[in-house]
């Protein structure tokens, strides 16, 4: 039986950031990775995807971005290479090709069972990310077997799709990007639109995430915001890793000929049905976007910068078709593919501990699940940016501090 003080599960940005913090504190640990370092960045993203954060936000702890394009958006494989270099530079003790099969209580700590044997430890850090599986509605199983069903985790490129029209379900960052790419490859695309978080890529000549950062919203803490549950469920920003002139929103998609319909509401006999709520979800998204942008204007006023930044360039309101279609008979209309861009969920099914709520979500207080058990990289874990690359450093430091204090308590007892 192997032993390690701490087992980190997952060698992505959060797991590697935590490893660096533990190494600084001379805490013996190992990182288990089911594939290679940055596995999901390499294996579970589509080819053309670029990071949604500008490069100046894509530095790693102690290794800020030093490239020539701080305002650009790097391809994900470039970032995956950065992670591999980061792990090497920090001599991170990564065991690749090691899948965790279970985590259960053992003595005062935990036993981590892997396909390479078991490891006993005092602490476990779950750093497998927030996007291990897609969250599909239950009626996905009612679609005919003739329809190819994909998600952003297994979609790679338009050429791989079977012939026919494509229905993209979900209009957040993944759905809108994939809809545009497939449409531009020469196919008919329909996108089903539920609640979404519309934001322009840039506002008053600055990246929207620069505004988030400079106005302090980006670093909002989990114990300081109202209604944390709601904040943790907010859909991803409707963004693409591409600079300002070519916005990606529902107007832009309609301009190139993508059909928009309401939230997908059900399937009957291979006819998919859409909610009649499209007008409201678009109106609500516009109102919410304008509140956010007004907050930035107010900040500029308060800081005497209002005249120094470019004039307002509020995006036009979302155009909603007069009578969006409420149903589509997929077979009759020649649809071959449905892509579920309906959000992601972590996969913690291998944790054999009573730490889940009634919806199967891991319960945690800012990443602290129970003594010696930590989780990282979930939406608004400790900060609004916890799921983003530049959120990893603070969360790793805070949780490593907690872990160290906890070790001290165990030793003192």
């Amino acid at each position, binding site marked *: 039986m192997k032993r390690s003080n701490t087992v980190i599960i997952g060698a992505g940005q959060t797991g590697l950031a935590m490893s660096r913090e533990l190494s600084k504190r001379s805490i013996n640990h190992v990182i288990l990775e089911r594939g290679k370092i940055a596995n999901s960045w390499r294996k579970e993203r589509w080819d053309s995807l670029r990071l949604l954060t500008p490069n100046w936000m894509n530095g790693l702890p102690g290794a800020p971005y030093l490239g020539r394009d701080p305002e650009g958006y790097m391809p994900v494989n470039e970032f995956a290479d950065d992670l591999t270099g980061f792990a090497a530079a920090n001599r991170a003790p990564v065991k690749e090709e090691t899948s965790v099969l279970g985590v259960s209580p053992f003595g005062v700590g935990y036993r981590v069972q892997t396909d390479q044997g078991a490891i006993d430890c005092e602490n476990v850090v779950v750093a497998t990310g927030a996007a291990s599986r897609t969250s599909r509605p239950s009626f996905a199983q009612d679609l005919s077997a003739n329809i190819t069903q994909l998600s952003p985790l297994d979609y790679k490129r338009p050429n791989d799709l079977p012939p026919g029209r494509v229905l993209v379900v979900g209009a957040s960052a993944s759905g809108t990007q994939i809809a545009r790419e497939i449409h531009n490859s020469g196919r008919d695309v329909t996108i089903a639109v539920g609640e979404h978080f519309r934001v322009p890529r840039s506002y008053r000549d600055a990246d929207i995430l620069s505004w988030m950062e400079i106005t302090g919203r980006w670093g909002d803490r989990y114990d300081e915001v109202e209604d944390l549950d709601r904040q943790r469920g907010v859909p991803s920003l409707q963004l693409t890793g591409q600079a300002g002139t070519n916005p990606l929103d529902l107007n832009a998609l309609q301009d190139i000929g993508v059909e928009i319909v*309401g939230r997908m509401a059900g399937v009957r006999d291979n006819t998919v049905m859409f909610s009649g709520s499209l007008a409201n979800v678009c*109106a609500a998204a516009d109102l919410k976007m304008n*509140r956010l942008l007004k907050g930035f204007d107010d900040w500029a006023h308060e800081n005497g910068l209002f005249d120094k930044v470019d004039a307002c360039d509020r995006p036009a309101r979302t155009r909603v078709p007069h009578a969006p279609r409420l149903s589509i008979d997929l077979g009759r209309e020649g649809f071959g593919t449905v892509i579920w861009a309906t959000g992601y969920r972590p996969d913690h099914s291998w944790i054999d501990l009573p730490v889940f709520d009634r919806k199967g979500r891991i319960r945690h207080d800012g990443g602290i699940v129970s003594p010696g058990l930590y989780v990282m990289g979930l939406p608004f874990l400790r900060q609004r940016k916890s799921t983003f690359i530049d959120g990893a450093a603070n969360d790793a430091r805070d949780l490593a501090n907690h872990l160290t204090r906890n070790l001290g308590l165990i030793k003192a007892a």
Partner: protein
Amino acid sequence: MNVQSKANTANNGVNVQALLDARDALSQAPAAAQFTWRAATEWQNGVHSRSTIEGFFGLGEEHKHRKAFTIDADHPAEFAASDNGPTPVEIVLSGLGSCLASGVASVAQNRGIQLRSVTAFVEGDMDLYGILGIDADVRNGFTAIRVRFEVDADATDDEIAAVVAQSQKRSAVFDLITNPSNVSVSVA
């Protein structure tokens, strides 16, 4: 601070604190949140019927309204009927208007917005070729539904629009009109 002081002064007659307390309590007791609503509809004569609404189930037990309410439904003279009440589809429209109006009042109160008047004008378009069986491609139900709100309140246009948007997001009737529901009908 501003929001807080507004919240304390706005009074739309909605006990928001009770609603928020109920939300907190029910989030710890999912079984208690399971409600069943009922209506009993008795045919009168012709296309005239009378629905009685009294009991409902929720919070783990049976409840009764303060009294039994009745709603008559009929059709107007243009349908060769006796017009003892609104048509069922008009009752559905009134249900949508009532649900959205109550949502507006609650959301406004929660956001500290004092309402002076709120009116929802609800319209539903229907092609009778559907219910009369003239054209199988025409649906029975509404081909379009429009709601126009007139709101007089201490708030900006955007704030009012946001309240109206939120009332749709949290409306049961809006949901059941805009989304399909499974309906099972049996004969005892």
